């Protein structure tokens, strides 16, 4: 491994999030090395989405978030986006009455504001990655199918050239073939050096592409380790993967 991959891009320690008096996350520690793909898996209600929302600053949290050499204590969303954090939320949050192209361009808003004019090039790269979006660039985002919306949401987040891309359940509601396509894109992005934090229900596919994995249960980290090891861990297999999971193996191939 090179020096760059050794650097911690994201370092979270003792993160607490509460909805009123109910604690959703209690003392989460998580690190992500630059250039790595880390996945967080876990059952429904484990706090996966809450974790991403807290890192992004959407939810107020206690604890320190160390990102790209700076400490953030309960920061706001816009500041973090400015520092190179990107989130593809579970709800996608597209600008449904605006065109696909406008959605993508707005992803580069921070770069435009800073006077970085090279976003046209990124736009072309994204169209190359998702030819479907190019075909539909003049169409309103609200008219897209589920898979296309997911592509648009990922493309829009990539327009800001984030240092760390966080994805919340990118395979939610998608047909298996499209899921496979999207996971292939994550592997591509990782090989281009984009760091990714992936939250997934589709545990087998996620473990297949990831370098390192955390298992979240009841608001706490239940297990962690290199993804390949976790995928063979009997406890994980029993709880999340199941034995007859050949079809899922196909998804991530």
């Amino acid at each position, binding site marked *: 491994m090179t020096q760059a991959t050794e650097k911690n891009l994201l370092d979270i320690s003792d993160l607490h999030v509460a909805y009123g008096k109910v604690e959703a996350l209690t003392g989460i520690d998580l690190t992500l090395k630059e250039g790595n793909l880390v996945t967080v898996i876990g059952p429904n209600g484990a706090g996966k989405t809450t974790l991403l929302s807290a890192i992004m600053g959407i939810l107020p949290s206690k604890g320190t978030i160390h990102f790209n050499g700076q400490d953030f204590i309960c920061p706001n969303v816009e500041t973090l986006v400015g520092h190179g954090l990107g989130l593809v939320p579970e709800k996608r949050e597209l*600008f449904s009455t*605006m065109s696909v192209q406008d959605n993508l361009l*707005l*992803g580069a808003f921070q770069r435009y504001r800073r006077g970085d004019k090279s976003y046209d090039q990124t736009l072309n790269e994204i169209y190359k990655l998702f030819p479907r979006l190019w075909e539909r660039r003049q169409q309103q985002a609200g008219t897209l199918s589920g898979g296309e919306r997911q592509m648009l949401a990922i493309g829009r987040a990539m327009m800001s050239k984030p240092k760390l891309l966080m994805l919340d359940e990118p395979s939610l509601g998608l047909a298996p073939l499209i899921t496979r396509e999207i996971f292939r894109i994550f592997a591509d992005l990782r090989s281009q050096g984009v760091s990714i934090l992936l939250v997934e229900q589709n545990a087998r596919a996620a473990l297949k592409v990831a370098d390192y994995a955390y298992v979240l249960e009841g608001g706490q980290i239940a297990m962690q380790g290199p993804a390949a090891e976790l995928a063979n861990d009997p406890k994980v297999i029993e709880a999340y993967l199941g034995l007859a999971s050949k079809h899922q193996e196909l998804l991530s191939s």
Partner: protein
Amino acid sequence: MNFQIATLLGQDGLTNGAIYALLALSILLVFTVTRILLIPLGEFVTFGALTMAAMQMGKTPKLEWLLLGLVLIDCALDIYQQIKRHIDRNKMKMVALKLGYAVIIIALLNNLSLSEIPMIAQIALTLCLIVPIGPIIYRLFFQPLADAPALVLLIVSIALHVTMVGVGLLLFGPEGARTQPFSDTGFRLGAVLLKSQTLWVILVSIFLIVALFIAFERTLYGKALRATAVNRMGARLQGISPIFAGKATFALAAFIGSASGILIAPITTLYYDSGFIISLKGFVGAIIGGLVSYPIAAIGAVAVGMIEAFSMFWASNYKEIIVFTLIIPFLIWRSMNSHNVEDDE
């Protein structure tokens, strides 16, 4: 009614309609981006007109004290918040910049002989004085309530309107004022004499409407404001701050309001409280557009101007009633046609 009267009324209606269209567009703009019904918009109209009139009479407009007061409160809050958290160099620079701006404007207002400088300079000074009040008002009264329900925002908006009318009385006094027209020449179109101010109003309104359209459809900043209106969380995730969007729309509304005031000041005598009825007619236009459609709102507002002008001829006592009654059939039509769309994606 003969042809000549009809064209005169039409000219009046079109002039007022153009102003109502501008106001309707800014009401719509502010509403879609921030969910606030900007009732105090009319006060920006009167502030613009009365400041201009004060300048032409050679008096220093007392509105400068309002600007200074608001800037001081704003800066004090900024500094207080930074002491509570941590001190940010860039933000301190912004505070210094804001204070410097207010001081420069006040120095200019007090040292120039305001009645003698060219009219374009008077207009520029008036705009420089009033436009910053918009974003500061957003920051002081609406930003802390950004997540409040629309009804709360409406109540604050009404309170703000009443306060600003009071401030207007305090700063400008109860006398009405009228300003000199931009140019004295008239144009003859067949048998009808067109006042040059009418042309100014129509041309500037069209220019502003087209400029707004281009800004919102073609530039990324305009798209960012629209995006905030479409999906607030989505916009935040792209780094578009709703606070920035709110301030920008309030600045635009203050600009359009005061520009409208400057445009109509030579045509009608305005008092400290005339703004409300003017912006209310813009609001009727915005309602016709269902508070969503810009083109329909603009056309509706021009129609309001026309109907007002012609009802002045036939039933001048009832002209306001006729204009505001117009809203009822449109509301009925709107409520019949509207269906609630739950947008969960």
